[in-house]
């Protein structure tokens, strides 16, 4: 077991932009670190550099105390699980798991025991003599895990290992992996584009965008205190509603205006985001998670913290209802890119999703009054995306 540290690590493909741009990150010994981000953000490249499958253009990568920049993959004492499992199709499960031991010339008897221990840990004992093609997706996935754990490596690397499984199995394997990692206590680097996996699995989550590390934090902190507009928009499902608003400060009272609405911010908001007070007369990005809304009658708020909207779509989820509405404000973008990948950049309005109590029946086209819990809201600078703390 070992810590992993990236210092100023960059990867540049021939004639291309940097796939990973001076990554600085330390992964502690025994930590479960998740790399998350949209496709093409450099998370897999970072993992492959750690594995030794990609050359490092600049910077220094350490595993434990050793600089591994030029160490071949086999000498790094790491194990990796691939998205498509990459089992050796012509070898039985036993041979697949034992291949690394065979290469390392581990004593046959000892290797047999190690293979069988790993197989037992993963519930593969009865499949040891089968070929991969005779296994189900979940079993193949476990064989790939077995191949990784049998050598007791210093670091586990997982590249979207669950993305080929069906939803139910994915949930099951998710908890299996968490338990396995906790049990073995091995440092784990896990790449995913699925934020649910990121949030539920990692001790800490590293969010990447276009090769640049955005924020590293425990999942809860990532959610509650996003370091910038991108993280705020990326983490959470449904994602945070971001509305460009005009801010006025009058006597310490902060008011936001967007479309036909005017909202007075609660004192809590200003406490958490004191930067708001310096932005009189300028535009800010107002960020509200869906759960920061409630139907007006459900909570006790003043009238100036309520907006009235027309329902575009109401999705009854059981415990809650997701209400979609459109505000007549241009949608928010970062560096010319839309935050919400589903958003229509041509649309005139900003779509907001509010999560209200499931006891309410809401119909399409109905006008409803939404109360805003502004003391929980987030505020960002529209130019650099930084929070106005």
């Amino acid at each position, binding site marked *: 077991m070992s810590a992993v540290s990236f210092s100023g690590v960059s990867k540049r493909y021939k004639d291309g932009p940097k796939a990973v741009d001076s990554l600085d990150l330390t992964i502690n010994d025994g930590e479960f670190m998740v790399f998350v981000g949209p496709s093409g953000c450099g998370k897999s490249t970072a993992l492959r550099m750690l594995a030794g499958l990609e050359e490092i253009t600049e910077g220094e990568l350490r595993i434990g105390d050793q600089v591994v920049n030029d160490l071949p993959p086999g000498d790094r004492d790491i194990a990796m699980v691939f998205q498509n*499992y990459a*089992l050796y199709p012509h070898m039985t499960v036993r041979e697949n798991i034992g291949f690394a031991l065979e290469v390392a010339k581990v004593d046959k008897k000892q290797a047999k025991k190690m293979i069988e221990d790993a197989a037992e840990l993963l519930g593969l004992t009865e499949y040891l003599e089968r070929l991969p093609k005779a296994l189900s997706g979940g079993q193949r996935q476990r064989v790939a895990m077995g*191949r990784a754990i049998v050598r007791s490596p210093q670091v586990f690397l997982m590249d979207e290992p669950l993305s080929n499984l069906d939803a139910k199995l994915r949930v099951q394997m998710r908890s299996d992996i968490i338990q396995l990692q906790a049990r073995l206590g091995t440092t784990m680097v896990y790449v995913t584009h699925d934020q649910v996996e990121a949030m539920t699995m990692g001790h800490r989550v590293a969010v990447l965008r276009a090769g640049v590390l955005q924020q590293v934090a425990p999942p809860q902190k990532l959610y509650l205190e996003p370091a910038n507009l991108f993280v705020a928009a990326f983490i959470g499902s449904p994602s945070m509603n971001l509305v460009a608003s005009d801010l006025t400060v009058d006597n310490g009272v902060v008011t936001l205006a967007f479309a036909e609405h005017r909202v007075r911010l609660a004192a809590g908001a200003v406490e958490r985001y004191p930067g708001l007070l310096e932005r009189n007369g300028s535009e800010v990005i107002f960020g509200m998670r869906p759960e920061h809304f409630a139907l007006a009658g459900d909570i006790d708020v003043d009238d100036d913290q309520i907006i009235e909207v027309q329902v575009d779509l109401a999705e009854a989820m059981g415990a809650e209802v997701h209400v979609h509405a459109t505000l007549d404000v241009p949608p928010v973008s970062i560096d010319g890119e839309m935050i919400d990948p589903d958003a229509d950049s041509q649309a005139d309005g900003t779509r907001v999703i509010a999560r209200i109590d499931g006891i309410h029946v809401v119909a399409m086209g109905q006008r409803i009054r939404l109360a805003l819990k502004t003391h929980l809201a987030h505020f960002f600078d529209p130019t650099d995306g930084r929070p106005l703390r």
Partner: protein
Amino acid sequence: MSVRRKGPRATFVRVGTYALLIAVAALVVFPFIVAVSTSMKRNSDIFTYPPSLVPRAEVTVSDAERALDGNTVYDFAERDGSWVLVDDDIPLAVFAPVGGQADDVTLAADAGERTGDIMVVDGEDVFLIDVDGEAVEATRVRLTVGGLFEPIDGGDQIVELVSAATPQREFGPRFENFPQVVNEKNLGRSLTNTLLVTIAVVIGQIVTSILGGYAFARIDFKGRDKIFMLYLGSVMIPFVVLIIPLFQLMLQLDWTDNLVALIIPFVFSAYGTFLMRQFFLGIPSEIEEAALLDGASRWKILWRVMVPLARPAIAALATFGFLYAWNSFFWPLVIINSGNPDNGLLTLTLATLGGRSSTDTNLVFAGAVIAMTPPILVFLFAQRYFVENSATSGLK
């Protein structure tokens, strides 16, 4: 899954399809059957009329008491029963009765009694011969040799011209053709040489193609793609163009009339390298990366992971290489001295065997059958690899 159509029209189509397929198959297989059948015939059996696809041997009898030892059994058109040829060296004479009304009679050469009178008919002596108990005057037209026949169950012997009898035949393949052609016509040595050359070429081609194909597919080195294009380009050059330079090269190396000249130039195959490269490219790179992470060296990955996955391609390559080397004729004809039987190849020996002066048709066919058996076996054996699952079965 295919949906089977039903109804009389579909049945008609299906029957028609099968009929056509069977007809074409029969057409293709027929020469092959003729070759196999002829290879097991006696030479005397090949040109019989009507021709027979089944090798038939003459029926013989052995009986120590009657001093018969493998004597042939004959039928006569005008006599009943089967007759055993006891002696085929009986002097006979053909007598033509004087006057010309009666048919010619064949008798023992000394059967006729010269008449006392000296009668000359067209300058011929006249004999008195006995025809059905009647003495007839006849001239002796021709002296010949005939056979002494005995009924198969014993009885009175008769003398007849052998050509008047047809030997009885029964099913009887002559397997001796094979050892005979191998031993007498130098086919044995040629077979050994061809086997040696073919195996060396096939193994050499597989090894070089695997190494080259892997390097072109997976190892990044400077100028790789240019070299590969050059390599591919060499496939476009017809072999006839290469014969003279290659011959000169062999002269320089003093490899003429040497089996090495049949092996070394052919163990490097641009086509095989291309085939292996394409196959290796199709193997997901993750499998190789997994092996790298497992600590395997390139060499180990190649032989333990890539090669086992490439079995279908290797089987194809081996089959083509085998057929090419086994059947190659022109280059051996050029480089191997035809006067040197020690370096003969199957193709060369077969060509001489079937040449102008050939009389042993059965042996030519026996040699051909020997020559075509190994390729057929190789093909049947390799076939199951062609249909084997592709390498991706371990994924997803």
